[in-house]
């Protein structure tokens, strides 16, 4: 399920992002994990049910809970980090270089989504604000990751 956008950017699944702003490719650098994050915060594409209001990611055309049609929505790019762990040993089929963090981001729309946490070497504290950003895999395709938001100066 790889899609190529008009800008030539390939995603790991074509419907994860609500939009792909001008993403610049950057090479992965094991010493500077923040560098694998490309470009500005992006919005994930989810769906909200027109009947029961449940939000799903990835988006569903029909709500799996109640069967009503769902509308596409773009999630807020900012979320709050919940539980977080790390992957220390290469899992089967994974392309992300270990070690890396995986956490759950809680979005204002009421959905929690698992994702790689980048731009941090230690597990950030609970409730850390995170931005949703594009992450380049070693094969050049993009997925999403969560990055602790810059602290206001």
């Amino acid at each position, binding site marked *: 399920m790889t899609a190529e956008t008009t800008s030539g950017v390939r995603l790991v699944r074509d419907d994860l992002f609500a939009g792909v702003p001008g993403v610049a490719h950057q090479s992965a650098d094991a010493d500077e994990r923040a560098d694998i994050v490309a470009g500005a915060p992006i919005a994930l594409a989810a769906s909200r049910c027109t009947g029961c209001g449940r*939000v799903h990611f990835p988006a569903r055309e029909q709500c799996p809970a109640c069967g009503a049609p769902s509308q596409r929505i773009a999630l807020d790019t900012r979320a709050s980090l919940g*539980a977080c762990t790390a992957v220390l040993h290469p899992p089967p089929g994974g392309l992300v270089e270990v070690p890396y963090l995986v956490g759950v981001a809680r979005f204002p729309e009421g959905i929690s989504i698992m994702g790689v946490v980048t731009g941090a070497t230690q597990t950030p504290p609970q409730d850390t604000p995170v931005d949703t950003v594009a992450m380049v895999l070693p094969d050049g395709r993009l997925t999403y990751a969560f990055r602790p938001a810059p602290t206001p100066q």
Partner: protein
Amino acid sequence: MQHVTVAGIGIHPFGRFEAGYQVLGAHAGREALADAGVALSDVDTVLVGNVGAGMAKGQNVVDLIGHAGVPIINVEAACASSGSALWLGARLIEHGAARIVLCIGVEKAPRGFVAASGYEDWQIEGGIGVNPVYFALQAQELMARGVSADDLADVSVKNHRHAVHNPNAMYRREMDRDEVLESRMVCPPLTLLMLCAPNEGAAACVLMHEDEARRRGVRAPVRLRAVSLVSRGPDDWFVPAPSFPTEGRTSLTARAARMAYDEAGVAPGDLDIVECQDTDSGSELAAYSDLGLCAGGDEAGLLRGGDTALGGRIPVNPSGGLLSKGEPLGASGLGQLHELVLQVRGDAGVRQVDGAATGLGHVMGAGHNASVVIVGR
């Protein structure tokens, strides 16, 4: 559940073996038939739970037992495979479609992480389709409400202490808290010794209508008082789902448990023993509250008080659990039933729980499956 008994049980030890899955499954199946005092030709239907073996696996297992020409149905539901086979077998008898059903669970799982748990490629390649991550996130949530790393270690210490006396367990050595904590970190806070190892083994049971069991003079029938089976509801979260509702998340285990308690007409306080899905230490603690053994938030208290150890108020995983036995995915549920029936019969030897009359088994699998079984005198 009315009129269904467990008339016989069988098991092939859990571990690593040269023999193929057919041999392991047939061993357990033969043992269960002999225990019930019936022949394969007496059986109306054979149900075989398995995840990883190839085409017509149940047929290949039964081929080694005999050629009786009876229907054989393969059942796959990840770690809930043999729980699902048990559910189906019990319903066949309850509704008059069979008098005697042989259920076999068997697995030869490869070493290491269980791959192919239903993740889409983007999850696997993108680094989040990793089973222990789910368990580690659950454990982190438990720690946010008072569970400590020591508690997580102590679940494993307890279950390994239980397994010393179980000849069918793979790991039968006691270990202390430090050894568990200092074993290789897999996904924080879970270390290697807080996670069960996928392995090989088989377990089986013969289910029988109670009239048939009486007519045949079955030696030690144990009543199957309830068996529930649930799949994903609107607000559940388990492998392989990448998202869940932040508020109002529900538990497959809790739902399966409520159904089973209702069907059996028993309450958590009536239980003498529990065998639960201790895929990891945190999953056992989560099961304490999901199964109603304690209120949410009191899981660590139940463990620290010794209530769930052998000798305690409600021993959990007296067999040693999956942490000590290892987890042959398709056999785990029937392996639990084997322990429950031994205990209720009073045949569990050194690990016998005095007066065990009512026991509960619980499995939960990838793809959102959970099954709870209650047996009793």
